[in-house]
């Protein structure tokens, strides 16, 4: 944490910005509902307000826009916090939550269900459950491949992640090739999107986000110690191998859950921690909560953009994050290289 940063104040300000972004997300959309009416609909359970809206408007706000905006915030927050933790665990600024092949595994699982038409039979949870299961399966394979006795060296974890991810995405490519009429559906899922996801999805993701975040926040000190090397952290009384395993399990569950509801949304997990470090420093006491909030804000705004840019059509949100994220990341790198 930089000495000048007032953490509680920063958190409050970011919470306000997030609330504002979410309000914006809820009030803007294809059907033209005035801002005041949106506010009234959202506020009605809490405050006595005049009931001057149609049931259609109410269901658009409460059952279409609100869950979707919440989902965007939750996905953004979980990807960002997982990215921050993984970058510290690997001591590698290029690490992101998809590094270990979770996303590729999840993509294969989702494609399998979509292509074979199982999706129709298995209800709305068919795709997310398959994606989640394949994501976890992938990381178990990566972990077992990388394990040396009782230890998991970070480099071998990274390399095994790349190998398994390549294998999984070859599988997905094959399915795309033979998918025929389902091709559009699969591609749309792969590009990442939260369009049309209702409260069920929020309910699906929420426990993982809460559990994972509380766990990560409890790791503030061990993660700080880990930045200065595994051996050094061990000397400070941290059981590094156990910590690594716990973190891998938590990351897999949280990222797996996020990917299963939203598809592959790149760059949020990679860039958000970098942005936060730039002005808040590398201390996890600030880095973790701020990444959580900034990730949520970014994805809510990205979701809004994806709805506006080609209105009335929607762009997959993964395209937006990559379009904005990649140049921004390049800018960060250039800036850092100039300073160095």
């Amino acid at each position, binding site marked *: *944490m930089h000495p000048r940063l007032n953490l509680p104040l920063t958190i409050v300000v970011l919470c306000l910005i997030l609330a504002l972004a979410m309000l914006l997300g809820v009030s803007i959309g294809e059907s033209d509902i005035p801002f005041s009416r949106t506010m009234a609909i959202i506020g009605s359970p809490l405050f006595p307000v005049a009931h001057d809206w149609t049931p259609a408007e109410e269901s658009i706000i409460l059952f279409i826009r609100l869950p979707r905006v919440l989902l965007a915030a939750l996905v953004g927050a979980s990807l960002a916090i997982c990215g921050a933790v993984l970058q510290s665990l690997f*001591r590698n600024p290029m690490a992101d939550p998809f590094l270990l092949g979770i996303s590729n595994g999840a993509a294969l699982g989702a494609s399998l269900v979509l292509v074979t038409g199982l999706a129709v039979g298995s209800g709305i949870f068919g795709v997310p459950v398959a994606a989640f299961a394949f994501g976890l399966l992938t990381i178990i394979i990566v972990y077992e491949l990388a394990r040396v006795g009782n230890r998991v060296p970070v480099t071998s974890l990274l390399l095994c992640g790349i190998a398994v991810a390549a294998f999984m995405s070859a599988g997905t490519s094959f399915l795309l090739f033979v998918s025929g009429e389902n091709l559009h559906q699969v591609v749309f899922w792969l590009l990442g999107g939260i369009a049309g996801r209702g409260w069920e999805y929020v309910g699906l993701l929420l426990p993982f986000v809460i559990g994972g975040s509380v766990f990560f926040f409890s790791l503030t*000190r061990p993660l700080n110690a880990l930045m*200065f090397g595994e051996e050094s952290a*061990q*000397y*400070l*009384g*941290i059981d590094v191998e156990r910590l690594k395993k716990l973190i891998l399990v938590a990351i897999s569950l949280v990222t797996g859950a996020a990917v299963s509801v939203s598809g592959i949304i790149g760059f949020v997990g990679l860039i958000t921690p970098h942005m936060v470090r730039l002005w808040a420093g*590398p201390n996890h006491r600030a880095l973790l909560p701020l990444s959580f909030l900034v990730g949520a804000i970014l994805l809510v705004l990205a979701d809004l953009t994806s709805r506006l840019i080609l209105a009335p059509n929607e762009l997959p949100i993964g395209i937006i994050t990559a379009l904005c994220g990649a140049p921004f990341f390049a800018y960060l790198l250039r800036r850092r290289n100039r300073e160095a």
Partner: protein
Amino acid sequence: MKALEARDLSFSYGRTLVVQGITLECRPGEVLGILGQNGSGKTTLLRLLAGYLRPDRGTVRFRDGRDISMMGTGDLARIRAVVGQSGGSYFDFPVSEFVMLGRTPYLPRFGRETSHDFMIVEQALELTDTSHLQDRLVSQLSGGELQRVTIARALAQEPEILMLDEPTSHLDVRHQLEIMELLGDLALRMTVITIVHDLNLAFRHCGRVALLHKTRLHSCGPPGEVLTPDAISEVFDVRASRAEDPGTGMNLLSFSMPRPRPDQKRKRIHVICGGGYGRAVLHALSGRGYHLSAGVLNEGDVDLEVAEYLGSRVITAPPFSRIGADERKRLEECCREADALVVVAVPVGEGNLENIRCAGKIAGSLPAILYSPSSSLEDLDYTDGEGAALYAEIAHKGTIACSLGELLERLSSL
């Protein structure tokens, strides 16, 4: 009493044995230095003592008899702190928070640091003289500052034993001394075990040293007993000599490359010198691999010490006495076995006149070189002309060389 006791430690990476059968004890309040060549197992030994690695065989026990391999990481971190080799990326972490990391083994998961923790950190900063750095970022510190701050972080663990892996590497001489003096001060409160590369630093600042040689413990004890020229040359494969530093009265070790292996075909050269005039010649000839003999030299003569250090055969006479018939006979013997004779022009008086007389006689039958780098021969004569005449005779029968280069060239053309 023992602060830490290692018994019969062995460890291997795969099939490579890195540490073999090391038994060692550390006493409370001492600075124990671990020395040895690169790859002799120093860092591995330190990691074993710190409980980072588990020995294949043997045990490490603390003061109270507990086996450290049975202790949890957290318990260990409250008893010993380790300052590893510096390096790696340091982040924009403020120094005070970096030192606070040392409190990790005492802090609960979610709880905040208490005023006690802040007090300990403050003390650690004071002890290492780094209080003025606490608002700086770790990434902005110089090497010496970083090392002190890292030691402060270790002190914040309130350890009984402080272990360091080459804390003075990459530091300039002033900062090296500062760190070693700091360790000496800290030893008043705890036991310090440190790997040291610089033997002179170890000599001055360690109460005891453990010398490792090829994965085993060579010897352990006070530096004066362990760091003998013989032990150093065996362990480090250099030639070593030990002298007293005239300024500080402290022991001073100096090193040079070992002589090439003796070769039967190498030429033997006898050198007549004395009073330190022959030092450079002896070193130069020895460096070229010639077999040397020297004399006659009086005991206490600097050149005698040099000749003995270089392992040459010497003919000696008692201090401040003339060269007698017996010494002269041995000188003639030496010259008969030699392939060449080098006479270093030294001031000649009654005491060493016999050397030159003998040389003058032999010069005809043996290639002889008079080495006279600077002074004129008359100035060296304290014998009313006989010495100067003899020097001239040697130069006439043989040759004269005015520089080391010239001398070596003449010798190699023989």
